[in-house]
């Protein structure tokens, strides 16, 4: 066990060495921890949202058919339903009615969808928590919304969707189909888009091809594509995430390099004394490495733990300004915690390795001095 004793002694000295320059080392640890915190928060958040999307959107329509006119979305004629029904393999075809409503008094955008089963009573709506928050509308309230003809229509709020469902419902207004048509001025015989159910899942791609051929002015979107949208949504290659990542890592490396490599005269002198009293070069370097490890472990544990609390207990509070952007409405995230050990490990290496290199390399120089150098200093 003499190896353990040796290193315990070396760690003793490394700790006292860090303590002698505590101001610099505290600053270093904090910056390091903050970098880990930022990166870990992003990792935890995006992973959780991706998993949520995958789980929740399993029930999304199998195929959505949109109509394009002059390269832009247009309403789809109801007669297309008959055409689609005739395609072999197609089960059910339904029309979807939905749109966006901009409320000038709050500056918020809401998504209005036609009521599903069981349908809402005419004149009533169900709203999401975000709508309720921005319009200050609770169950039983009457709220006026401005229709396509410029006139205000009053709707009674009969239900507010739960907090737990905010990630899909925060900005929703569920309105009876008839009211929606009148409100938006969508003429009879048209829908926003169509949804299809296919009898055999394996036929999806074939059916989509047929749709494109039969109705060339339409664009089918498969459920699989919907799900993959969210897998790649927070891709690390996406602009902002890349900037955050690269920025954090670069700033960290620069800071660590500067702080860690600027061995003070005092530190050099101490390393000289160690050599003079009988420490080998490798042992002096080991001591400096332990300094690095101590800081790394502290920063990594602290940063990751705080990131976990930040994302899963405070709904990623610090990301709100970034994600909210110009939006007035912002959902309250209650994400399901999930940790991918490989990503945590990758983060560990991404931060610990450059930092260790930044500490060991300059120490090498100071550690390889002759033992008698201290007498000539």
């Amino acid at each position, binding site marked *: 066990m003499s190896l353990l004793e040796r290193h315990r002694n070396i760690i003793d000295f490394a700790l006292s060495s860090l303590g002698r320059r505590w101001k610099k080392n505290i600053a270093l640890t904090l910056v390091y921890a903050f970098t880990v915190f930022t990166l870990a928060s992003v990792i935890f958040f995006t992973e959780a949202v991706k998993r949520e999307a995958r789980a929740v959107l399993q*029930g*999304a329509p199998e195929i959505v058919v949109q109509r394009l006119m002059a390269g832009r979305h247009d309403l789809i004629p109801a007669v297309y339903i008959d055409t689609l029904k005739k395609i072999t393999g197609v089960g059910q075809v339904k029309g979807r009615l939905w749109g966006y409503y901009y409320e000038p008094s709050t500056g918020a955008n809401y998504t209005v969808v036609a009521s599903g089963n069981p349908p809402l009573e005419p004149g009533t709506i169900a709203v999401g928590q975000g709508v309720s928050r921005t319009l200050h509308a609770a169950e039983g309230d009457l709220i006026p919304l401005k229709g396509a003809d410029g006139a205000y229509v009053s709707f009674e709020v009969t239900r507010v969707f739960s907090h737990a469902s905010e990630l899909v419902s925060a900005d929703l207004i569920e309105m009876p189909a008839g009211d929606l048509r009148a409100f938006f001025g969508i003429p009879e015989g048209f829908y926003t888009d169509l949804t299809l159910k296919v009898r055999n899942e394996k036929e999806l791609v074939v059916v989509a091809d047929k749709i494109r051929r039969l109705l060339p002015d339409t664009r089918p979107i498969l459920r699989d594509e919907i799900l993959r949208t969210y897998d790649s949504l927070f891709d690390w290659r996406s602009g902002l995430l890349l900037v955050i990542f690269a920025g954090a890592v670069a700033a960290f490396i620069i800071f660590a390099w500067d702080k860690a490599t600027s061995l003070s005269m005092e530190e050099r002198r101490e390393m000289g004394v160690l050599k003079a009293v009988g420490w080998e070069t490798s042992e002096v370097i080991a001591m400096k490495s332990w300094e690095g490890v101590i800081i790394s472990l502290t920063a990594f544990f602290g940063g990751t733990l705080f990131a976990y609390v930040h994302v899963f207990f405070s709904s990623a509070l610090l990301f709100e300004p*970034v994600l909210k952007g110009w939006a007035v409405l912002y959902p309250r995230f209650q994400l399901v915690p999930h940790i991918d050990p490989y990503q945590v490990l990758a983060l560990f290496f991404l931060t610990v390795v450059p930092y260790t290199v930044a500490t060991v390399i300059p120490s090498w120089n100071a550690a390889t001095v002759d033992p008698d150098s201290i007498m000539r200093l």
Partner: protein
Amino acid sequence: MPGRKSDIFFIVVALGAAAFGLMMAHAHHRNGNAGSGLKEKAMLVERLELTDLCLFSDARYARHPSMADLHSAFQDSPMAMEHFPSGTVILPPPHLRLR
């Protein structure tokens, strides 16, 4: 020598590792119990035939990225600047990119 420095260090590391382990266990546990919230959302998605999560409500192509068409970025006005930061956070969906 009471409280040898390296002993204190080992204790701190052990505590940190324990907290870390607790964190992983908590995540694992909550994963199993995620049921009710996820179920509720899934049911809503099915009932109302929804296709997207409500992450960004400032632009159409950000609110419904899976439904976005190629010209969505220009639809608000010819001079409309891309919505920041939501536009930079999200990429166009794969089925648009692989054209």
